[in-house]
């Protein structure tokens, strides 16, 4: 094992932040749903893919990508809200396991649907929101960082900051926190629980549309399975950050990206690219074993 030079180390960190930003983006969606409803949406990645296909179709019909993205995110919001009211809420009353099973069903169903409708490779590449020619990169101390990746990171940070403001500063955010901590009492003080639940899923799906479009831009195309491995990383990030912490998911996603990339490159024989994902999974296992509420999550006190 040769210890990497400073430029190499910096390069690993940049590459790690680049992928970490994508994990964080999807993790934000998981956190929003968990905060609002206490559920983990196993279909978060697939819903993002479905919305991205929507964005792609709109763009294909002539809308500029950024407009298509805004419309796609709006459609995503509607989709998320509809899923919550029609599929999640009715079974949530029965048992929390039923919700897990329904989201697994959604995961399978959407995956099969996108394969069935858009399966064959598209005829042209998906454009990116950011410059992505081979020489569109910044050189920083001998390392390079692509503008597109910097752009994704900035969007991720901006969305995270926006969500934090939403939760902390707005009435809606207050209502969300209230519903998450005690739905019954919230209802008693006049908060529309159903709107809050709907909105949580809607926001998460809209975030999914944005993250999916960014991923597709980086990937140069939308493919049915593009969010699957990202979902696993994102759930690791959400777990590490504490499932209900926006800032936690953000920091955890970026850290996982950096740590796994450093690990893969510094220990190519023991970890290497093939065991990168294992690093994230071991993080899940260790965190849940020793600090289930994550680094920044609030630990729940349960009354018996």
């Amino acid at each position, binding site marked *: 094992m040769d210890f990497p030079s400073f430029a190499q180390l910096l390069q690993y960190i940049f590459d790690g932040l680049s992928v970490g930003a994508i994990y964080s983006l999807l993790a934000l969606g998981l956190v929003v749903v968990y905060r609002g409803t206490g559920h983990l949406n196993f279909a978060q990645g697939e819903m993002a893919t479905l919305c991205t296909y929507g964005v792609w179709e709109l763009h294909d019909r002539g809308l500029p990508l950024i407009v298509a993205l805004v419309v796609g995110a709006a459609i995503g919001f509607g989709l998320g809200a509809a899923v919550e009211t029609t599929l999640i809420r009715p079974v949530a009353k029965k048992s929390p396991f039923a919700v897990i099973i329904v989201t697994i069903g959604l995961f399978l169903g959407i995956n099969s649907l996108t394969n069935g409708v858009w399966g064959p490779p598209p005829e042209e590449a998906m454009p990116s929101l950011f410059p992505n020619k081979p020489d569109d990169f910044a050189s920083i101390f001998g390392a390079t960082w692509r503008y597109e990746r910097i752009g994704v990171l900035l969007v991720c940070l901006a969305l995270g900051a926006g969500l934090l403001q939403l939760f902390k500063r707005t009435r809606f955010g207050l209502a969300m926190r209230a519903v998450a901590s005690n739905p019954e009492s919230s209802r008693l003080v006049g908060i529309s629980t159903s709107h809050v639940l709907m909105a949580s899923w809607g926001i998460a799906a809209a975030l999914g549309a944005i993250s999916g479009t960014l991923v597709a831009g*980086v990937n140069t195309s939308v493919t049915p399975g593009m969010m699957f491995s990202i979902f696993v990383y994102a759930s690791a990030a959400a777990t590490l950050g504490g499932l209900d912490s926006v800032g936690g998911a953000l920091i955890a996603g970026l850290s996982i990206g950096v740590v796994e990339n450093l690990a893969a490159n510094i220990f190519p024989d023991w970890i290497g690219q093939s065991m990168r994902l294992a690093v994230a*999974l071991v993080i*899940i296992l260790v965190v849940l074993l020793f600090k289930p509420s994550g680094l920044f999550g609030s630990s729940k006190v349960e009354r018996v």
Partner: protein
Amino acid sequence: MWKIRESSPAHWLLRALAAVAVILVVLYIPTKTSTSTVSDFAYAFELIIAAMSLNLLFGFAGQISLGHSAFYGVGAYSTAILVEDYGWAPGWTFYVGAVAAFAVGVLVSFPALRLKGVYLALVTLALAVLFPLLVKWPKLEWLTNGPKGFTNGGYATLPDWPFLGALKGRDGRAVFGYWLALVVLTLCYLVCRGIVRSRSGRSLIAVRDNQTAAAVMGVNVAATKGIVFGVSAAMCAVAGSLGTARSGVVVPEGNLTLVGSILFVIIMVFGGASTLWGPIVGGIAYVLLDSYLRDAGGKDDGLIPSLFGWFNGSPASLIIAVLLIAFMFVAPFGIVGLVRRAFARVVTLIPRPAGAAAAAAGDGAGGAARSRVPAEAGLALAAVLTIGMIVAQRSQDAEPSAAGETPSVDSSTSPATTLAGTPGNTGEAAVTTVDDGSVSTDSAVAPVETTVAAPVAWTVPTDNCVDPEAANAPIEGTLKIGSVMPLSGGAPAIAFGPVADGLRAYIDYANAQGLLGDLRLEVEIADDQYSKDLTPGAVNTLLDNGAHIMSGIIGSPNNAAVRTTLNEECVPQLLALTGAPEWGEVAEYPWTNGVLPPYTIETKSYVKTIRELMPAGATVGLFYVNNEFGQVYADAFKESATDGISIVETQTIEATDENPPTAQATALAAARPDVIMGVPLGAGCYRFLPEIANAMAANPGWEPKIFLTNTCASALILALSGPSGDGLYTSANLADVGNPALHGEPGIKEYVDAIAAAGKPDIIPSAQPGWTVGELTVAIVKQAMAAGPLTRASIMNAARQFTYTPSLARPDVVFKLNGETDVYLAESLQIVQWDFDTQTFTDVGSLITEFES
């Protein structure tokens, strides 16, 4: 409303009726139904055991698990490793797998002590994803064989079981698999029942319903959870062992990944969680439904295709997903719950007053038919099994004996010398030498060229066939060709679906042109979703439907999973669509051959080209997909790269990871190799190239030559990588049919017209292998017919002494097989370079034929 008292004579009558019904079904299946049904049930039993183990944990103990695929994998691998590497008999390995999985299960129960709901789902999800990664971990390769897995982990020969008699061939394997799985299933059922109905079962349910209350009541929560996790894991491992024993093939894919966990959840939900019979009902329902949907989805007419015309491939998984969600709404306790509800309208059971209430709590759904099966039922079931074996043996005896007799006529003693001798068939321009591709054709028929095959003594052995007479029986009227390809279930179906269309198109074409005279051809393509677990069932269905030969089965593990059976049955397994070098084992598997150039030859051709481009030697950065295909390919490349060609950096990507390999490209660039050898797959093909282009831009002066496996060499795919793929090297032995300039060429024209006439002009570049497999199959059959009566044996003999140039092949490419001396059909490759501007491939140098044997 009919009220009966528990343990009253009426209740006993009810129970007896139910028992008789179960016994009849259990006996009926292996004796009276088709082999494919028997093998479907054997597979169902295996999945039922896994779902049952999940149900024990989830349904009764309330601990969710998405990690059961890992336990299943522990069993599957234990069996494969012990059988293939240590020569154990499969039966003993079940215990080892179970013990190993028990230990893993107990370990997993530690986090489960503190976690529940979503958090437990996350831990077990991590376990499911981690398992295949660990199996592929290079540090464990000595044990697990890496991504390649095992292909001989099952029963090489079936053991002699009393009552079942000597079992052989696919019938024998299916019947044996059925009884083996049923015996194990029965034991697992009794274990579950024992646990649930006992004091420990009541502890489980108490933990599920209220952990704190349970602890207060004196239940040792930690011990209860630990044991139930362990037992559940052990049981699931047994299912995995059964899976390995069934086909002998284990790769870290399919049911060993999260896919398997989800499958077990589906089965449990379909049948009914928290009910003892739920997984049994659910497993059978799932396998029958899935098999029906895959079957229906592959056909052109019928309800499913007419409803799902807009859908690429079969909608099987979509329908199952919709059902899964629907069940949570209308039948949270699954089919068993529904049946119970229906029963409750007719019959009410009045429980015995004392002690019954607590025990009955085990059944979540409640309702009337909450029958507590008495302990005698276990004995009764054992008796049933015995009777079943006797009956099965009778039905075996009724069939013609497999052993002994040597066939009187060995049709293959006069091998074909030429094909060209049948006059009257138009278009058979008897071209004996193949020159520059200006093929002589003056008719509309595709050029069927033949060179003279030398008379060779190789003939396929039929003495050990299950039914030697059938192998030598003349085939008249219609020849049924079977094939198994992924037609649904995601990326492989998208990639390979057009191959199925190409094969069908050629068979239609051959029939329309009357290429085989009076002999009609029928082709049936079954769907295995690229999962080797489904291939044996698919092949059994095809054989039940009367297929005479198999041709063009896609995938290495898939072909491996049916190779033993087809060789025992003496059914030609022609033109396996895989490039792994193991498809040339004539001595072990005389009835099997492959059609793709083996990777060893592809990589040698690249190394030769690299040497020509850089005579002073070159450094290579190797990038490959971390699965069976990538590993076999990379091994072949490493073996070929000698004398001045050195691999300086190796990077991999997971097959399920569809994101661009940025970090890998960075690492490759850091080593600054002269050559990049890329072995990605599917979407990875076009994601890899822009990353290399980016890395080149970031590293001025580094301009490697890029070589890409010909699996990626499709204009459709490469176009998506934009200008970054321009100038890359790959190889081909078939013509670049994506190039419209060639569409007027004889041979290619017929192909393009046929595909366009089928309404699928966009698959012209991707249907080519299917068309070629069809053409080669027809040519083999034609040669067999010319040599004498058409039999399965004569087809195999023709296939092994075969020289032919397919109409879509490049000029000068000759496909040759010759007994044991030339075991690979395609060994000539043309190196080509991709030209992004014209979207075509241009030849580099001349055809490489030096690796022909």
